[in-house]
């Protein structure tokens, strides 16, 4: 169990990560290590990060997403942010320069959907 995060296996190699309000991104190093360890252990190749509950993404949160995505890339896991809200996309597009380290998608492809929590 990772505090502030809910990690669910949604396919053979895919995981869904849902952050909760109690997520403390200042504890970045520990969180990233935990997530990476879980995914490596499960031989995951894809991580969907659910942004549905996030109305706004500020530079601090963007830095957290980028740090996590870079770590995932280092262990050969694609990180795809899904359900980004229009308000969050608007705020984020206002300050980022260049491409983020993560991919984005509207939703999880149907092929993955048979979830079980880990």
């Amino acid at each position, binding site marked *: 169990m990772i505090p502030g995060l809910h990690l669910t296996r949604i396919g053979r190699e895919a995981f869904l990560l849902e952050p909760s309000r109690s997520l403390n991104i200042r504890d970045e190093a520990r969180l990233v290590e935990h997530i990476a360890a879980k995914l490596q252990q499960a031989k995951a190749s894809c991580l969907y990060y659910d942004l549905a509950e996030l109305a706004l993404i500020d530079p601090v949160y963007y830095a957290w997403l980028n740090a996590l995505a870079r770590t995932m890339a280092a262990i050969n896991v694609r990180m795809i*942010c899904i359900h980004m809200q229009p308000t969050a996309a*608007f705020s984020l*597009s206002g300050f*980022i320069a260049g*491409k983020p380290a993560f991919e*984005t998608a*509207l939703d999880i492809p149907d092929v993955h959907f048979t979830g079980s929590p880990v």
Partner: protein
Amino acid sequence: MNQKLSEKLSALFSLKIGNISPLLEEPGKIHFGSDSNLMDDDEIADLSAEFLSLMAELLGSKNPNDRKSPEFHALEMFFAALSHKILMRGGRVEEVVRYTQLLQYALIEALEKDSGIPFTESRSVLHYFTSIFNELIMAVFRAYLEERERVLEAQEAELRETATPITEIWDGVLTLPIIGTLDSSRTMLVMEALLNRVAKDHADVVVMDLTGVQNIDSQVSHHLIQIVRAVQLMGSSAIITGIQPEIARALISLNIDLSGVTTRASLSDGLKEAFRRLGIQVSHKAS
């Protein structure tokens, strides 16, 4: 003093109201009937009868001076509704105000005639009616302002709608033709509407057609790029089509980085690209 006035007023209205009613139709006929054609005679008769019954209720209430009483509120609502009705039918607020003033004179005259009391000798009654009607004129103006505000809001919403004609041209493909001058506030409107539609329709591709855009400045070009970036961040892809040569030149001279943006010459090319991305093939029917 107040009690004395109330008694006087009640006494006035205990007279034959039926005799007064036709006299009060005259102001309605002058301002809403005949030339202006805002109401027919039956409607004016109903209006006068309703006014008289509400006024009778106010004067027969515990305290006719109480501006917070339900009876007075009902009278205010009557004038507010009248104001709305006349404005909706193309009348002007001046007509309602003049009608209200004339109604006041007609009421006083009718009561004078009916009671035989000269109101020049009963200033308290005169003063009472003046203050009541002043409040009612205020109610008319408030209704007018509310109506104006509502019309302006509706016009603004219509303008927003026409400024951002987003169409789902195919499942998952949104098109947004932009025509005219793009300024910062309009670009923000476009961005807001487009991002909300992407979320609502789960659009995979957005085609923004700039064929009708003649001018663009630095701030707007940055906003355009921001729209493309925001659409991509939501997980869709954006295609810009129809960039005129002068707009292309302006974008380059403004150092706008278009490297992450897919562009196509025309809307039709943009749609072909959108279909290609979705794996849709459109072909002529074999003859």
